[in-house]
């Protein structure tokens, strides 16, 4: 069933197909790259209850299959496919948790004997997703235990990168009663509670009830791509309905803003500020918000970078970033403990400048060039393109990076100011040192 087909500005044809209710394929056909990328993901609404279990599923699946029961034999199979890769991936797109695999293989055009890689690569992907190595009708307890330990290590390691950690924390505080507040890997406690049997049940649920997103980027004809994915699609349970993930709700910031402080063993303070934007990727005014963010703190020519960091030397770093599929913008900075009040004041006063139109035409154009360039180079990098289309698929949106870039080109100064005026401070999180 053909839904949409479009040629983008770098001559790539993008097709979006519904193969079955709840099972979709995004195919990007191009001869630009030496690799073809194949991906398969299960999409579910983020929930504190399931996040860790879902995250663990691809990690355990990657350990072995019925035909290739361990890492060595899987490595050999990948070598056979010209040194391809098949990576387990867990991502958060808006309030969707996406778990699955991204594979990168030599494109058929470049094999030594003209042999095909697409079909065996898609078969290997199907094998990993559908025919795991099992013991007594469930996941192998050894693999489950080892990967569960790895998952717990990864969750714990989040505190190592204090900059990243402060951002995770502000989101958790700000969106505590929204699905968006749940981390993509889930919590340590819920990870601890997982056993092989429970994980197996969750895996069956993903197979039967989750939205499935398949992705291809490479030189093959659409018919071949569909045929290559057929074993995977046919292997999914046919009965039952697959849930779609709803557009996240918007919220107003509390008055006054929430304030949270924590102490850890740090020598430099981390100040993270969460703002409500009243705008997300579905909205008409989203391109204007991307420019407001870029002028404010999204680039090295932005107000936060030039003033708070360079001119006033208040912060070691200060930048802002948007959550594309959620009405949230984060400002992240590193400050001396005793300068935090001053830094917060300056961060807000720079925002006020954006809201009152106090930015030059140069600042607007530098921001526009930066946003457009980032969007257009997405078309040049297969991994970024895959990530872009997964986000759009989770959101049910079909606009390509070049189309969004076109809209950004047309945004006016007034629209940027209007978007900036919608930004309201919701939560201030400060990480300081131990006394």
């Amino acid at each position: 069933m053909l839904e949409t087909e479009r040629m983008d500005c770098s001559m790539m044809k993008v097709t979006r197909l519904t193969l079955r209710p709840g099972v979709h394929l995004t195919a990007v056909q191009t001869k630009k790259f030496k690799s073809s990328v194949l991906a398969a993901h299960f999409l579910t609404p983020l929930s504190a209850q399931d996040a860790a279990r879902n995250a663990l599923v691809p990690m355990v699946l990657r350990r072995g299959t019925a035909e290739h029961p361990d890492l060595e034999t899987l490595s050999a199979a990948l070598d056979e496919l010209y040194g391809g890769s098949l990576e387990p991936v867990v991502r958060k797109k808006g309030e969707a948790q996406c778990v699955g695999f991204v594979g990168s293989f030599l494109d058929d055009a470049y094999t030594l004997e003209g042999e095909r890689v697409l079909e065996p690569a898609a078969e290997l992907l199907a094998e990993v997703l559908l025919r795991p190595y099992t013991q007594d009708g469930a996941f192998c307890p050894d693999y489950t235990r080892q990967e569960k330990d790895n998952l717990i290590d990864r969750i714990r390691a989040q505190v190592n990168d204090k900059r990243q950690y402060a951002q995770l924390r502000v989101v958790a505080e700000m969106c505590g009663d929204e699905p968006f507040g749940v981390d993509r890997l889930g919590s340590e406690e819920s990870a601890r509670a997982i056993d092989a049997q429970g994980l197996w049940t969750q895996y069956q649920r993903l197979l039967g009830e989750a939205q499935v997103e398949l992705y291809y980027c490479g030189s093959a004809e659409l018919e071949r791509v569909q045929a290559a994915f057929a074993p995977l699609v046919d292997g999914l349970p046919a009965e039952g309905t697959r849930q779609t993930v709803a557009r996240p709700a918007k919220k107003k910031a509390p008055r006054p803003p929430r304030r949270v402080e924590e102490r850890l063993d740090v020598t430099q303070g981390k100040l993270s500020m969460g703002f409500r934007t009243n705008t997300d990727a579905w909205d008409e005014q989203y391109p204007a918000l991307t420019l407001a963010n870029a002028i404010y703190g999204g680039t090295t020519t932005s107000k936060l970078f030039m003033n708070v960091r360079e001119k006033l030397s208040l912060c070691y770093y200060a930048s802002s970033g948007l959550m594309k599929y959620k009405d949230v913008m984060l400002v992240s900075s590193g400050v001396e403990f005793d300068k935090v009040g001053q830094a917060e004041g300056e961060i807000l006063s720079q925002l006020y400048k954006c809201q009152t139109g106090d930015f030059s035409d140069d600042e607007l154009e530098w921001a526009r060039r930066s946003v457009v360039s980032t969007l257009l180079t997405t078309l040049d990098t297969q991994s970024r393109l895959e990530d872009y289309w997964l986000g759009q698929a989770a959101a049910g949106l079909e606009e390509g990076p070049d189309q969004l870039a076109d809209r950004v080109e047309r945004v006016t100064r007034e629209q940027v100011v209007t978007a900036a005026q919608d930004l309201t401070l919701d939560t201030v999180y400060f990480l300081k040192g131990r006394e």
Partner: protein
Amino acid sequence: MVSKQYPRLGETVFHEILENGLHIYVDRRRDFQKSYAFFATNYGGMDMRFRLDGAWKNTPAGVAHFLEHKMFDTQDGNALQDLAANGASPNAFTSSVITGYFFESTDKFFDNLEILLSFVSIPWFTQESVDKEQGIIGQEIRMVEDDPENQVFYALMECLYDHHPIRVPIAGTQESIAKITAGTLYSCHKAFYIPANMVLTVAGDVDPEQVCAVARKILPQESGVPIDRDYGGEEDQRAAAGEKELTMEVSSPIFQLGFKCDPAVRGEEWLRRELTGELACEALLGSSSPLYAKLYGEGLINKNFGYGFEVYPGCALMAAGGESRDPRKVRDAVLAEAQRLAREGVDAALFARIKKGVYGAKVRGLNSFENACIQLAQNHFAGVEYFRFPEIFDAISQADVEDCIRRWVTPERCGLAVVRPGEAG
């Protein structure tokens, strides 16, 4: 301009030799939004002794790297900022062999190219700015000296080599850079930053003729004289020292195990040697080899284990390293496996598999403009067209790979460097 097609890679490369002797390669990539330019000189950390105006000259360690830092200064300010204002992302690096300057941009490519060619070819140093840079580079050297990965690498070089300048850290030492003056920088720039000793490589959807036109407009007319260098005479086949140990603050021992291989001559043999060496690494140590499974299973190596084969002017080596509770056991197991392979040969199915794996990785590596441009430049200096690698690769046999292991992975050619946990000393 000559255009050459490489059908097995799906690439077309335009090549021109300018009147001043500069080679330009443009890898035309249709339908890409970004473009990439790489301007390099055949001058790196190794090139400390050379002949200029008829006389042999000795320079302190670290000059090439120091020059790289200072080249971004221009009479009007700083080229990094000029490029950033045009939306380009510029950077540079110095290796043992070359110094390269580059940028990527989606807009104003030719303006950016003018800036690149201009700041690299026009030196602008003052004693004051050189003094200031000494502090900055001094900090960088201290940071590198605290880095166990880096220390273990140079310890391996000292194990393997008696005098070859690959032993010398690229950035030099606090003492060596203290001897660098504005005069040193000017004379080394004059010697090595000449069209005859440089190359420009570009990847992107850009007009190759216009690349040449910009280079003709900006760069000097004179070719300059190619420079003779002295790396101190041929090295013995044996490793200079069997083992070296250091102590630093690390959580578990880290090691680098190396084998001293014969140097390769310039031309296709150079690239052939590199590819054969990489296959030998895979057969001996790769993630689907029997030795890897054994070492991993016994907990002697972990996921941080890595390996590679490097060819430099006047030397070549195979190296493998990572974390291990018992690096000597790893070395002994590698030597034993090499002996077994020398005796029984490599498993034919394994060889077929790794040959595909390495080939696929090489071709896929060309997705990166940066990698394509750097490879084109480095191989140009080595006297070979990089994009000929598929044909060279085809001709490498299982016997070639076995021969490489048999000749070079031996106890006499082996060095082991270890950083053990403890107080730094």
